[in-house]
């Protein structure tokens, strides 16, 4: 199952699971339990790379490395669990045809993209963890990597949602763009109007011209993305520490005080 799930993730990253012809059933064809396991594994890899910083303290704090490997997957999955119910409810309320299973598969696929990026940047995180003693720098670097990964994952989510819902919605027009219309039944690989010059299949992050998402569905997802980012940021603060400050002994969790945004501002101040 895990091997197949990694294969699914690879095809998601290549865009082979999100071509229009693959989304006709209104869902991303991936195994939810399998991809969840892959998210956990790649999240653990990201956490291990983050926790390398603690291995180069004097004395090394291997418990921090282990804790980070456990907490990073928890961070992503808990954020999803917290924000999913409201997304499903509001999505259904505005009349989106995306049902529970399809929505959960779409979200786990976008989480898969996010953790793939964080795990891939793990080499750079680990490299700087080995080569620097600056804790504020490591905090900011990790925040930057997670922010980029989050943006890419959410961009994937929006693009795929766009493709799924416009394939499955009744005719509708975007009030901001009166010239928009539903595309005709796609023939094989549905392509934008510049197909004559386009010799390659679009990747999973590429917008397809001529597809319009209904305004209310777009609004729900945009709000959800902001909520997801805020919840994710604060969840990371609640679950801290991930890197392990050299000035503090190891602890699984720190006391409740301050917030994520204040901590980032403090790190920037300490860096400069």
């Amino acid at each position, binding site marked *: 199952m895990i091997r197949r799930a990694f294969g699914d993730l690879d095809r998601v*990253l*290549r*865009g082979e699971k999100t071509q229009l012809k693959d989304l006709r059933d209104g869902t991303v064809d991936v195994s939810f339990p399998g991809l969840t396991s892959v998210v956990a594994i790649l999240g653990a890899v990201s956490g291990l790379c983050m926790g390398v910083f603690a291995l*180069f303290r004097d004395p090394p704090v291997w418990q921090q490395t282990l804790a980070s490997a456990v907490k990073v997957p928890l961070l992503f999955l808990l954020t999803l669990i917290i924000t999913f119910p409201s997304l499903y409810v509001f999505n259904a309320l505005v009349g989106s045809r995306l049902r529970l299973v399809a929505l959960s598969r779409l979200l786990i696929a976008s989480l898969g*993209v996010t953790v*793939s*990026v964080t795990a*891939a*940047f*793990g*080499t*750079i995180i680990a*490299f*700087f963890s080995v*080569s*620097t*003693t*600056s804790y504020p*720098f490591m905090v900011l670097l990790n925040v930057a990597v997670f922010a980029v990964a989050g943006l*890419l994952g959410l961009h*994937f989510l929006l693009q795929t949602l766009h493709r799924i819902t416009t394939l499955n919605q009744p005719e509708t027009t975007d009030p901001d763009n009166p010239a928009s219309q539903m595309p005709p039944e796609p023939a094989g690989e549905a392509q934008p109007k510049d197909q004559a010059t386009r*010799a*390659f*299949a*679009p*990747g*999973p*992050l*590429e917008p397809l011209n001529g597809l319009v998402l209904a305004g209310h569905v777009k609004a729900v997802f945009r709000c959800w993305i902001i909520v997801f980012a805020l919840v994710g940021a604060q969840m990371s603060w609640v679950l801290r520490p991930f890197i392990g400050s050299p000035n503090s002994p190891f602890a699984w969790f720190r006391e409740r005080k301050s917030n994520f945004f204040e901590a980032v501002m403090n790190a920037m101040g300490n*860096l*400069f």
Partner: protein
Amino acid sequence: MTGLPLRHRVRGWVDDLLRGQAHGHTSPRALVMILVFCGSGYGLVMGSFGGNPWQMGYSAVKVPMLLAVTFVVSLPPFFVLNTLLGLRGDFRQVLRALVAAQAGLTIILLSLAPYTMLWYASSAHYSAAVAFNSLMFGTASLTSQLLLIRYYRPLIARNPNHRLMLRTWILIYAFVGIQTGWMARPFIGSPRHPAVFLRADQWTNAWVVVSRLFRNLLAGS
């Protein structure tokens, strides 16, 4: 080409590489050999400032190591980003372009080595030697970017997303490379200090140092 003497083949490889024609003719192994040989060659020259053979040896090892470590650390995120942009099918060619540009960088560096030797023969100031080598590395890096762009042209013509990835590679590589170079000091070796492979204070961060210098500059101190 395989029947020719080695020196003719090497000359052919170098010539093809500099002209942006390494794709079809130069094997990956040849590219790596060029990188190691030319990188070590410049490292030997770089480390000769103090006349210490140990420093020369250390620098000969560290210059190709610097390039290799930076490359290996930067590659995984670059691979995933290429995949996300639908460029996985071209990655073999991308990899070849990147390795060819790295090898080109070392050839350019080695070609600038005579200037470094002349500088060392003309001046005994350590900080001037550091500045001059920085200039040589900067010149070689900028020129190798032109080479990289030349190798990327057919890729960009095939898919414009390669242009974004080329810029991303340059950013990631520079970000990691500057830290790697900082960590791997000394390369030139001050005559007042014994030759060492790595400095005792290597566990500092180049970006933190630069940001503090910048802050001090702005503060006027």
